[in-house]
């Protein structure tokens, strides 16, 4: 006999625990969730309609703002799709620089993830440390590209300008510093009984249904399935670099946090190898008059591994100087709507924010 009646709660757009500007509508009985529905649309800017009004190079100003915590994978995927349509080669030095930029973007996004994940469990110290150290990585970006958050640095054909003098040494020094600090972060978060008891056994994604539901990225590697775009379909120079893809069993929040903890260490190792192996040479395969550049007609699909999972761009061209259709798939499209609605029933209200942070739900990616 059920004694409590069902109430509807709106974990609405203005809430200190929710990741971004979205709403989760919950039907609860007491403290247990019975049904969940995601409502998005608060951040819709009609990107795909706006890109059809800009030409191929002007679209880069819009692309960075698709997913706000990690703008670089979007630029790289669009550049790769346009290079496939235009049959344009990228020089090798540019490929190494692109790999370094992607791994730095991955690291700075994980630093922000530390703040969100630990903050929703009540461990606020970790957020102050990791976001404070993230500023060193943003300083590296500012030396290279001129901006802290939105870079617009990766163009079809290479990168926009060469690396400045002394940048490589600065990167290596920053990597040494962050490697020492990682020990402190992991001790606060992973040796902590509060975090362990809250994270183990909560928000489980079953292993046999994970790929069918469309789970990608660190949540998929947290269920025990080894799948990463960098080894499934290697792009740029990832096939020449030596790195591992960590996987852990369990499918709960604990396993996903362990995956991300190991991935930062792998990123540091990739950056060190790439700086070591980088050749001299050209950095840009020049596009003739970028404002009037036309791309031959066709359709292309390119995908890369962003911080949250796989990011894919479907680009259609009809031979003019403006894109005909650009359709973006972010990892949060399936994580935030389908997977969240399937794993929330049965959990407590206090765990909603915790689960959303571990899945990596980012609303600007869902509704563009």
């Amino acid at each position, binding site marked *: 006999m059920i004694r409590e009646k069902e109430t509807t709660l709106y974990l609405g757009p*203005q809430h200190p625990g929710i990741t971004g500007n979205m709403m989760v509508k919950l039907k609860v009985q007491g403290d247990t969730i019975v049904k969940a529905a995601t409502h998005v649309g608060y951040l819709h800017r009609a990107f795909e309609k706006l890109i059809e009004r800009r030409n191929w190079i002007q679209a880069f100003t819009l692309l960075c703002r698709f997913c706000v915590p990690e703008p670089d994978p979007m630029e790289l995927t669009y550049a790769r799709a346009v290079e496939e349509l235009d049959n344009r080669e990228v020089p090798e030095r540019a490929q190494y620089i692109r790999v370094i930029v992607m791994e730095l973007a991955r690291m700075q996004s994980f630093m922000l993830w530390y703040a969100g994940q630990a903050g929703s469990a009540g461990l606020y110290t970790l957020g102050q440390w990791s976001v404070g150290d993230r500023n060193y990585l943003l300083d590296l970006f500012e030396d290279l590209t001129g901006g802290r958050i939105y870079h617009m640095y990766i163009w079809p054909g290479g990168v926009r300008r060469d690396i400045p003098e002394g940048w490589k040494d600065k990167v290596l020094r920053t990597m040494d510093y962050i490697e020492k600090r990682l020990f402190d972060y992991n001790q606060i978060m992973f040796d902590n009984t509060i975090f362990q008891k809250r994270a183990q056994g909560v928000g489980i994604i079953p292993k046999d249904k994970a790929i069918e539901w469309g789970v990608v990225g660190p949540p998929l590697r947290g269920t025990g399935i080894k799948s990463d775009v960098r080894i499934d379909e290697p792009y740029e120079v990832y096939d020449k670099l030596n790195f591992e893809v960590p996987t852990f069993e369990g499918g709960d929040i604990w396993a996903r946090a362990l995956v991300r903890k190991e991935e930062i260490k792998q990123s540091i190792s990739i950056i060190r190898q790439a700086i070591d192996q980088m050749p001299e040479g050209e950095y840009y395969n020049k596009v003739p008059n970028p404002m009037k550049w036309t791309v031959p007609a066709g359709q292309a699909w390119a995908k890369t591994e962003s911080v949250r999972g796989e990011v894919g761009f479907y680009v259609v061209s009809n031979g003019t100087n403006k894109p005909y259709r650009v359709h973006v798939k972010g990892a949060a499209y399936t994580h935030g709507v389908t997977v969240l609605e399937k794993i929330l029933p049965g959990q407590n209200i206090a765990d909603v924010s915790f689960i959303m942070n571990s899945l990596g739900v980012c609303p600007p990616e869902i509704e563009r």
Partner: protein
Amino acid sequence: MENDKNSQKIVDYIQNFARKHSIFVLAYGTGCGAIEIPATMTSRYDAERFGIRGAATPRQADVLLITGYLSTKTLKRVIRVYEQMQEPKYVMGFGSCTINGGMYYDSYNTINGLDQYLPVDVYINGCMPRPEAVISGFVKLQELIQQGKAENGKKYRENLEHYRTNQKKIIKNWRMPDYNW
């Protein structure tokens, strides 16, 4: 009992001094500019030495920080949140999208200027503004408070008809509570 002019000046000075050194910002990231707020509040660009910290609900907040563009769906919720805040209350427009629409000027879903729908005290320009720019915006707000010029809560209450006509032009399904406190 009314104070005479000189003692009113002293009372105002103390009142504004207290208000400007404890500004509570509502925890609401409305747009893409919200990515520089964690950086402003943590160790390198520490905004808490100015007295700025986060507040969880609108009833406890002083400042509504509109970080970036506003879609029409969010504008309806922002108006409701703004009307729940107690006076004195301030609005800061963050980024160039609040000034003239920014790079989304031709989008069918984003508004082009915040001034028509809510009264704004300080604009911070940039895309997006650096943490130093954010702190300089807060310092300008502190100067306005000290001089007694940040009275936009009263301006909203007195010109309610003007703001309501503008808001109802773009929000079609108007089912919101009346503003009568």
